[in-house]
């Protein structure tokens, strides 16, 4: 149990490191999927298999596919990779690494200082328990989540619109200026 | 209700001026003139019919009494009410406001030709705010008007002012003025609130009322801090020297009407504030602070005078002389004897007239010469008709020539303060010499010396002549027969003096010295 946790935790960390250091978007995405699956394993190891399953299905499945889709669609070429390599000079990543390192150390120090003692037994919490909460007292929250998704949907569909009469807008602009002056 | 109308009339008149511009350029001017005449008439009516020989504070500490009072609840949450009251001091200053308001309208008759309506809106709102300051005895209301009147003044300077040399733009001057006064005003607000909460802790009730707050017991330290809050706000506006920076710029860059109002009335609100609030609310702290205040007054006298000597811009010179004169006022206020306090009133009135006169003169010079730079003047005596005569008169008034009201003001302050603080008075007397130096330097640079041209400029027209003559007459009148004025403010000043003397470590100290 514990071994599974630590092992998959290690994998998750390494894969994530790969995500943020990789220069190729597709490779990075693959690393991210690995990381997410590792986290899903962590969930299972901790006794939340429902969450693990969702992690794989929603995160690694749906969201990452969306990412891959977009990356493919945009047809990010080698120039992007070259550019990424250029942007990833030590001068650029050193500062952020130090900063997040300090943040990490601080967080760990806080976790260390805090009262631990609680141990995760790995007892399984079933989907049923989760569901009865969600559709019980948290009903409102679920509805709100629906609204949230609606808002996201509308936003994405509006913002993602590519066929736009940009040309005509551009043409009319000088007219408006003329009126003003 | 009359008191409320005194405040409302200028505000309403201002709006009318704004809208009156539709009926031509002259309409706002006449409306403004009518409005100010109305204010002055009401004030003079009150003066005539009111009784200002009031019984002063009796030994039991009976509340201060007013000739007229008007009160209506405003913000009950904090015990704030619209509480207006009139006594001799406020009456005199309101009358002054009305009079200088008329002058301000008159002297901008030809000077302001753009956006006349909006100009008079601002002008009248300043005056309305000032009247409010002089009438309010609810501290919140007082602060309200105190801050409010800055806005139209800001516009007046920023929109109709003149830009000076060396990047002294009018907007910069206006902004400086606004920030100085507003920031210091906030300090006063903090002090007011400190006082209110101290009173709350004591009585359990919110109140911003003057009479109530006067009864608040304060610890020495707290009283000193609160007093300082008030003092700084007033000191900025008076102005007292380290805090005077806004004044020369604002005065120099403002249009004539603005300078007249600034020097004539706005500076007086500060002295009024000290007399009405800083001293009576914190007599002990004020008493303890008096040596510092007088020191600052001395500094102001000398600093203002020295700087006045170095100015090339006519209006800046006059502005610095104001600083110097206000040093006397400060000394008088903190000397706190009856004679000195009455002298303060006298000097305030006199300085209002003489500074207004000088600013109008410089405005008229500007209209004719299109410069305020004294290096481009000189030898004007024979080229300007009767204008040099009037400038001579107001210069003489400003240097404290006997016979003018300024002389009486300064002398009363010095006579009144001498028994308490002889050395301060001796040093302040040096200011009389410096006053002569800067005043005559003005004459020398403007009117004496070789003429820089042959042509004659337009003589004063009837409107200008009448204005100057009225001012001259008033300066002389109060210089030779000031008793009606002194009788009016006597009761109010006696109260201040008694409050101040009630604690009087200073006067006993002085007596011990003898």
């Amino acid at each position: 149990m514990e071994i599974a946790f630590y092992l998959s935790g290690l994998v998750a960390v390494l894969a994530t490191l790969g995500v943020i250091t990789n220069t190729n978007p597709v490779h990075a995405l693959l690393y991210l999927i690995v990381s997410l699956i590792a986290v899903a394993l962590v969930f299972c190891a901790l006794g939340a298999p429902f969450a693990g399953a969702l992690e794989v299905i929603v995160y690694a499945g749906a969201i990452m596919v969306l990412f891959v889709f977009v990356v493919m669609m945009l047809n990010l070429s080698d120039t992007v990779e070259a550019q990424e390599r250029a942007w990833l000079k030590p001068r650029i990543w050193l500062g952020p690494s130090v900063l997040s390192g300090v943040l990490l150390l601080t967080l760990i120090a806080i976790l260390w200082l805090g009262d631990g003692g609680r141990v995760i037994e790995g007892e399984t919490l079933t989907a049923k328990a989760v569901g009865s909460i969600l559709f019980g007292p948290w009903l409102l929250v679920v509805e709100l989540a629906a609204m949230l998704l609606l808002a996201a949907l509308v936003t994405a569909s509006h913002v993602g619109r590519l066929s736009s009469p940009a040309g005509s807008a551009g043409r009319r602009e000088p007219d408006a200026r003329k009126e003003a002056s | 209700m009359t008191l409320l109308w005194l405040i409302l009339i200028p505000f309403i008149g201002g709006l009318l001026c704004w809208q009156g511009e539709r009926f031509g350029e002259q309409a706002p001017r006449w409306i403004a003139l009518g409005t100010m005449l109305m204010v002055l008439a009401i004030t003079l009516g009150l003066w005539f019919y009111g009784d200002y020989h009031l019984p002063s504070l009796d030994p039991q500490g009976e509340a201060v009494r007013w000739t007229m009072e008007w009160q209506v609840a405003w913000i009950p949450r904090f015990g704030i009410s619209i509480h207006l009251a009139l006594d001799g001091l406020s009456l005199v200053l309101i009358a002054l406001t009305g009079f200088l308001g008329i002058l301000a309208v008159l002297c901008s008759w030809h000077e302001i030709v753009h956006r006349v309506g909006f100009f008079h809106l601002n002008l009248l709102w300043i005056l309305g705010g000032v009247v409010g300051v002089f009438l309010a005895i609810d501290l919140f209301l007082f602060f309200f008007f105190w801050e409010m009147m800055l806005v139209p003044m800001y516009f007046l300077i920023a929109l109709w002012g003149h830009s000076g040399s060396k990047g002294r733009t009018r907007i910069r001057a206006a902004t400086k003025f606004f920030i100085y006064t507003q920031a210091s005003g906030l300090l006063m607000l903090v002090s007011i609130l400190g006082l209110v909460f101290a009173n709350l802790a004591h009585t359990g009730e919110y109140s911003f009322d003057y009479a109530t707050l006067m009864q608040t017991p304060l610890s020495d330290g707290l009283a000193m801090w609160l007093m300082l809050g008030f003092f700084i706000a007033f000191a900025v506006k008076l102005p007292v020297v380290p805090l005077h920076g806004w004044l020369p710029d604002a005065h120099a860059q403002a249009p004539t009407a603005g300078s007249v109002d600034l020097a004539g009335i706005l500076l007086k609100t500060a002295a009024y504030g000290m007399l009405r609030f800083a001293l009576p609310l914190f007599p002990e702290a004020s008493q303890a602070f008096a040596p510092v205040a007088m020191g600052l007054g001395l500094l102001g006298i000398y600093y203002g005078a020295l700087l006045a000597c170095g100015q090339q811009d006519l209006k800046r010179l006059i502005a610095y002389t104001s600083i110097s004169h206000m040093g006397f006022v400060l000394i008088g206020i903190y000397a706190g004897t009856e004679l000195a306090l009455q002298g303060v009133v006298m000097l305030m009135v006199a300085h209002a007239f003489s500074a207004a006169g000088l600013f109008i003169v410089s405005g008229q010079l500007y209209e004719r010469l299109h410069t305020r730079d004294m290096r481009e003047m000189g030898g004007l005596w024979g080229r300007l008709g009767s204008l040099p005569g009037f400038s001579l008169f107001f210069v003489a008034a400003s240097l404290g020539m006997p016979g003018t009201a300024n002389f009486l003001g300064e002398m009363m302050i010095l006579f009144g303060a001498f028994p308490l603080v002889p050395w301060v008075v001796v040093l302040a007397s040096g200011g009389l010499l410096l006053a002569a130096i800067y005043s005559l330097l003005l004459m020398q640079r403007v009117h004496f010396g070789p003429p820089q041209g042959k042509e004659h400029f337009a003589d004063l027209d009837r409107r200008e002549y009448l204005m100057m003559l009225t001012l001259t007459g008033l300066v002389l009148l109060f210089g030779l027969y000031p008793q009606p004025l002194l009788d009016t403010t006597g009761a109010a000043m006696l109260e201040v003096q008694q409050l101040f003397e009630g604690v009087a470590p200073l006067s006993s100290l002085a007596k011990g010295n003898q």
Partner: protein
Amino acid sequence: MSGVPMEHGLVLASILFALGIAGLICRRNMVFVLMSLEIMLNAAALAFIVGGTAWGQPEGQAMFLLVITLAAAEASVGLALLIQLHHRYKTLDVDAANRMHG
């Protein structure tokens, strides 16, 4: 002894969180920026799961669900913006859009 101390779970979450931040800060390509955001959200979700399992409560997983919802929504909107950016300016550099400062 069996079981993982809660701190360890939280430390794992912290590491992922910090890595996410590092990615956010040092990457200019918006694809990577969005991925970093996903990592950070995922780290937070992990922390909830850890808390939930440690207390033996389903609330942790319920929160996880909400977070994952958000992540999905965020990703979709983010990608839509990314497409728009690429479409208009042929770049994915977030700072390339930088027109405003001062």
